């Protein structure tokens, strides 16, 4: 374990202050290092495991990659499995997560803006309802949602997975709070006096000023949908429609009994982690987490 830890240690921080002036605060640094290793090592291990053939998986030391072409074999097995259905799953995941998050951002952003910037009969009641709905366990609704859609024969298509996830009470709440605080009434008033329609004001002023909240909502919803396994699990039974998560799960079920197929699942796990992790870590700076905790004080 320690050998791996030292091997893994990243390049020393770029700006190292002169040692005599400020010594490293050891305790928090060590705690952070332990936390980082806990979070990263499993991913590193799966990377190593993906280089192994099934035989090697059970016989070689766990933290030692092998270089006998196992990686290529596994990847080939994964991508050619069932006529390359893995590609299909990946595309489906993008449709569900990116498409769903984008639509959801529009729906929730519009609703939040309306609640934050207009007062009309029922607006206060509606907002209270939304705050209450934040506490609803969304995932638990999946089975009732299925029962209702099944009644009308509307399961087993993209819409059955996309539509139920578009409204997020928390996202609406966040946009409302943000719109109130950052879309300046004087600006809106000035635009009105200049003859802009309410539409125009919403699209060219409101939406723009709201954009930090919208990016945050997009990412939250993206992760939410990407993570929601139960909904596609109940709604879909054609593997052509599966997202990655469900496809991989199915792969495990099929191969469940026989350890001979583990390496293909491991390869699938790796492929579904790495692109998203890179994307996510690079997007991290755009997402305003303070908005989420900021909601408490409001």
């Amino acid at each position, binding site marked *: 374990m320690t050998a791996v830890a030292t091997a893994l240690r990243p390049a020393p*921080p770029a700006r190292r202050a002169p040692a005599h002036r400020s010594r490293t605060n050891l305790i928090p640094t060590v705690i952070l290092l332990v936390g980082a290793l806990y979070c990263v090592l499993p991913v590193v291990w799966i990377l190593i495991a993906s280089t192994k053939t099934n035989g090697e998986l059970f016989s070689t030391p766990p933290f030692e990659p092998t270089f006998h072409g196992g990686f290529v074999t596994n990847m080939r097995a994964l991508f050619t499995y069932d006529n390359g259905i893995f590609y299909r799953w990946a595309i489906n995941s993008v449709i569900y997560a990116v498409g769903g998050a984008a639509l959801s951002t529009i729906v929730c952003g519009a609703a939040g803006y309306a609640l934050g910037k207009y007062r009309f009969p029922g607006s206060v009641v509606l907002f209270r309802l939304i705050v209450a709905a934040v506490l609803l366990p969304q995932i638990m609704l999946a089975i009732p949602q299925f029962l209702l859609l099944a009644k009308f024969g509307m399961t087993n298509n993209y819409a059955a997975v996309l539509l139920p996830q578009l409204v997020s009470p928390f996202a609406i709440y966040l946009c409302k709070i943000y719109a109130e605080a950052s879309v300046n009434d004087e600006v809106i008033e000035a635009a009105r006096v200049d003859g802009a329609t309410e539409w125009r004001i919403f699209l060219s002023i409101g939406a723009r000023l709201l954009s930090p909240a919208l990016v945050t909502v997009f990412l939250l919803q993206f992760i939410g949908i990407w993570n929601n396994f139960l909904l596609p699990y109940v709604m879909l039974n054609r593997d052509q429609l599966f997202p990655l998560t469900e496809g991989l799960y199915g792969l495990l079920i099929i191969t469940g009994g026989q350890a001979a197929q583990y390496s293909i699942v491991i390869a699938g796990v790796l492929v579904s982690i790495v692109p998203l992790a890179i994307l996510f870590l690079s997007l991290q700076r755009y997402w305003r987490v303070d908005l989420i905790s900021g909601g408490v004080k409001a």
Partner: protein
Amino acid sequence: MSAIGDRSGTPPPPQTLLDSASVQPVSDSPEPPARVRRRRHRSLLPLFLLAPAVLLFLLFTVAPGGYAIYLSFMRMKVGGGLLGDQNPTQVFAGLQNYHAAFADSEFWHSILRMLFVAVIGVPATIVFSTLFALCLDAKRARLVGFARLAIFLPYAVPGVVATLLWGFIYLPATSPIGGATFDYFGSRSVFFSVANVAVWGVLGFNMVVVYTSLRGLPRELFEAAEIDGASELQIALRVKLPLLAPTLTLVTVFSLIGALQLFNEPNTLKPITNAISSTWVPLMRVYTDAFVTNDIYKGAAASFLLIVLTVTATVLANAVLRRISRRSER
């Protein structure tokens, strides 16, 4: 669409008199007021903007909920007729399904198992994410950038994939952490194993939320405490932690909502271990009712019960935590 569309410069129509009366010379305060005045402005736009959200909410939250409640009071009457060959019909069942759920010890066991995992997972998430956030904020801590990214990384991994990943780590045949000698799916250890996967996935996100809130606190307070001779540890525990109380409340409530909906982790571990049954947690049981034994009525009743229990628990926790957090702020 607003009626004031093409009139430029003219005062707004009568219904917006309130607004035109309140049009002020350009405000001299550069910051928007904390409490923004909302105007009564009769335009159809807000209704139009709200319509999709309201409609979707009615269709996919209210209607399914209502339908589930309806189903929960029904049952299937099989085979009328002499030979029992008539189509089964749906008949009113009263509270029968609820009685069945309450009387079923396995239902309560599944709730207990979920609570065990929550009791391990939620405090671990809160404690460690706060600990890491405080360490990130500590003076002269190193590796801060790396640690922040590394701890956040698992958040990008979907729960099912994370469970597959940990599943192989636990599995005796492939385990890199001694799964061959230690049983990660033992009658007790399985709860820790499941909780660990869940914690691994959400730790980073919660850490970033707490850290961001920490960075938003007034630094002067910490400096003042330092001048008064408080040690770094004292500042962290006595100054920073109490100020974080509202954020920690929020994080706890959200973690709790998440924990009470536990499904992905045990459901994904089920194929690789016998320690997890098909009714291991409530949601798995509802799934089994509805899809395996095909009793949607029982499933609907259990679903509705669970939603009520979860909302009640969340509201209670929210109230209690708010009280605690208010006290600690004083």
